């Protein structure tokens, strides 16, 4: 009986660590990269996109990088596929992460775009936040068994992948497509790290799936919205050098000169009368 009590005490007690809520975040911010200082109102120029477009795809640089090389490659491939199937897209270049510098701004982007000979850069940013919170079951962590067996911690992984295509010359945002996911689960304290890593991968995978759908829609609607005149800040110039949106305009200089000629033609006639 004594042996049983001792064994029970050993199993049910332990110098447990009882940690409160924790969270971790992996983040690469597009705004921080493109506007490293304060965001000032900038004069916007209409973007003129010469078809076929030369597109570069890159990750927004961050320290540390939120994704491992395999995940990066998978994500870049998704973005590449969304653009590759369009007849108005010519070349697509994958820009290595190391080419861009954190908080580099548009100057950094322009340099890389010149180097890679691209007109438009699709910047991919990732924001993932993971929460790990104790629940009522966490009280059982006082036992050694509890810490190993009982999944008393609730974890929550929220992922947002954002793709923003920027016209390098005019700094105009052409399109934006998000992909998001949210997954949650329970884990025992000793398994939390492994579970969070797994959930991180799973969250990215689901966000990528969501992104694929949204990016396809955004890319299709870009051309339509430009052609329909909803995007006045963008003009698409066809392979023949003609805009999707054409118009005829009179300019004030020739109008004034014309008015002078007409007036000159009619005013002396009245005097002659």
């Amino acid at each position: 009986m004594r042996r049983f009590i001792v064994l029970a005490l050993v199993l049910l007690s332990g110098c447990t660590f009882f940690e409160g809520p924790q969270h971790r975040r992996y983040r690469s911010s597009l705004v921080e990269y493109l506007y490293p200082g304060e965001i000032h109102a900038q004069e916007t120029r209409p973007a003129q996109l010469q078809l076929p477009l030369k597109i570069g795809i890159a990750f927004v640089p961050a320290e540390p990088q939120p994704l491992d090389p395999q995940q990066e490659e998978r994500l870049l491939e998704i973005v590449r596929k969304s653009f590759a199937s369009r007849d108005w897209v010519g070349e697509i270049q994958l820009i290595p992460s190391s080419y861009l510098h954190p908080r580099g701004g548009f100057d950094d982007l322009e340099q890389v775009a010149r180097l890679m000979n691209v007109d438009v850069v699709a910047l991919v940013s990732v924001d993932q936040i993971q929460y790990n919170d104790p629940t009522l079951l966490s009280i059982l962590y006082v036992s050694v068994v509890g810490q190993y067996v009982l999944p008393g911690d609730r974890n929550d992984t929220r992922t947002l992948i954002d793709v923003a295509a920027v016209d390098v010359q005019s700094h105009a945002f052409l399109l934006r497509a998000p992909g998001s996911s949210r997954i949650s689960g329970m884990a025992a304290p000793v398994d939390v790290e492994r579970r969070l890593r797994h959930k991180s991968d799973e969250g990215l995978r689901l966000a990528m799936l969501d992104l694929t759908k949204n990016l396809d829609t955004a890319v299709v609607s870009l051309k339509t919205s430009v052609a329909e005149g909803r995007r006045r800040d963008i003009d698409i110039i066809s392979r023949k050098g003609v805009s999707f949106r054409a118009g005829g305009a009179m300019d004030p200089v020739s109008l004034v000169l014309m008015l002078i000629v007409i007036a000159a033609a009619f005013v002396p006639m009245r005097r002659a009368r």
Partner: protein
Amino acid sequence: MNRIPWLTVTMASLSALLAGASLGGYAQYDRAALLRGEVWRLVTGHFAHWSFAHLAWDVLAFLILGALCERRRWLFASVILGTALIVSMFLFFCCPEVAMYRGLSSIDSALWMWGVFIIGERHVSLALTMLALFIAKVMVESFGVALFADGFTILPVLHLLGALAGFCGSIAEHKIAHFSDATLHSDGQRDRVRRRRDESAVVGGAV
């Protein structure tokens, strides 16, 4: 020039109305919509505009040139309708890459060329100056320099096409005027012959 050019005023108002009521999207030349059967866009597209500045300068030119050219209303309406249709058909068949088109300037170009001939009836040198201005304008546009044309491309070829329509309009007006004069002339001759017959009949009767 003394009477009110009602057609010009009405058409200029239509342009302002389309812009004010944001109906440009329903009126513009839209290749995809045309293929769906919305054929009114062949004409109404010329009365829609991309921006306020675009509208203002186009309509101002239209008012000035319309006041100059609106002498025979049916001919004026025919030239405008003809120019709109010719330019739209040219866009449709020869420029398939142009998805949208807005602007009165092709019609303005037609009236400009017509105006050259109207002014030429009074001052040949001024007419030539006006023609030179038009050519200079088209040349400047050909080099891609255009004010108030942000977000769209100006197609100088459409202005030349409009000018051609205006030239045809001025020839038509000249022919009509010539025909009317000839008719009046022949009517006068007929009257004179009839008067002589009547006079000779009166003289014969008296004899």
